[in-house]
């Protein structure tokens, strides 16, 4: 794999097995909000699960973003760093530009069935190389000149992680021998 500018997506699944305070807030508040919002699509309380609501009324798909805005401030407090996704030094270092919330499933009668995901899309990163299972990446988009050092980090390929945008870098200019 050659050098490239890339963007990555990381899908952060949050359910009743939450570990962090962020995950706890997201789990609890999105469930509470789901309980409220689901009412608009559940006259006579005929249904209990998110899947049933959507099957009965496709408009219930609006619940994804209706519920998602309930955690906007929690996500803002992440300061644009993807949580959970850690580099080879066990640090969260990957910045994100946007995110999208989705309800995987839920049940108005069973909170443990509540399962949601936040998919973060990174800023543009510079992919320098791959080393085994690891990507060698830099947050420095601008790399000028020759033999100029760049701050890098290494990120392991893992479930939930994907490259969603790829722009190869051609060595257009100066190659100094």
């Amino acid at each position, binding site marked *: 794999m050659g*050098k490239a*500018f890339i963007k990555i997506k990381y899908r952060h699944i949050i359910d009743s097995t939450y570990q962090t305070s962020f995950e706890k*807030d*997201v789990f609890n*508040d*999105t469930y*509470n*909000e789901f*309980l*409220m*919002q689901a*009412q*608009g699509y559940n006259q006579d309380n005929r249904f209990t699960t998110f899947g049933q609501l959507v099957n009965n009324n496709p*408009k219930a798909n*609006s619940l994804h*973003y*209706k*519920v998602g*805005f*309930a*955690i*906007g*401030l*929690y*996500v*803002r407090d992440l300061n*644009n760093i993807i949580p959970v996704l850690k580099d080879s030094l066990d640090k969260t270092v990957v910045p*994100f*530009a*946007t995110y*999208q919330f989705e309800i995987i499933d839920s049940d108005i009668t069973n909170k443990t069935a509540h399962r949601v995901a936040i998919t973060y899309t990174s*800023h*543009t990163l510079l992919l320098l190389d791959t080393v085994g299972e690891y990507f060698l990446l830099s947050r420095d*988009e*601008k*790399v*000028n*000149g*020759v*033999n100029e050092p760049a701050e890098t980090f290494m990120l392991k390929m893992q479930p939930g992680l994907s490259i969603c945008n790829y722009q190869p*870098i051609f*060595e*257009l*200019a*100066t*190659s*100094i021998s």
Partner: protein
Amino acid sequence: MFTLNTSIMERKDFLKNSMGMLGIGTVLVACSKSVDSTTSTTTSTSTSSGTTSGSCTATATETDGPYPLYSSRGSSIQRVDVTDGKTGVPLSIALTICNLNDSCNVLSNARVDIWHCDKDGYYSGYSNSGYLGTQDNTALVFCRGIQYSDSNGVVKFTSIYPGWYTGRITHIHAQIYVNGVLKLTTQIAFPDDITKAVYATSLYSAHGQNTSVTSFSADNVFSDGTGTEMATVTANSTTGGYDLSLTIYVSA
């Protein structure tokens, strides 16, 4: 060895919050003129004629439209000022929530969600098309707000006069929750003469008058009447815009 120009890479700012402040007109409306009015058990209604209980009439139920958004402790839309930097004629909104099941007295701590389009007819929260083309507003939350009614049953928002989009006459969406239970989904109508005046001002003139739906009778939501949903809208010399007030009746 390589030289790069990365100026083509764009960055997007995350969740922009507007801190603009506009004056909020104070409009308090008494729900009940008579404390001894008869309170009767009412059932919800889906017509704009409403249901009468004692001295007041239930606000009519309307569709929530396709795009409401909501709140929690971490909500990005629980705020008074919902403009988020959007330009438009200032609109100070005061809604009073009253309870049909309590002699039409004011109802405190009711959650009120509102949302409406910007001056050009675009909503935040999703990608939508209008006269300016398609706008991806997925990451934005302008013109959406949540407040809880105070001891006078009042919630206030600072916003802008909504524009219009094809298929609808000017409106604001509203939902009322009491103790976590959705009590009412409705829409708020605007006096036509004021809307026409606003749409003739410089900020709105590019889109101009609503040529899509030119009367309430032609509107798919308000065609059955605006009796319980027509707001009182008055000029506000301080903001240079308008104050909107409406009393909304729910059975709680």
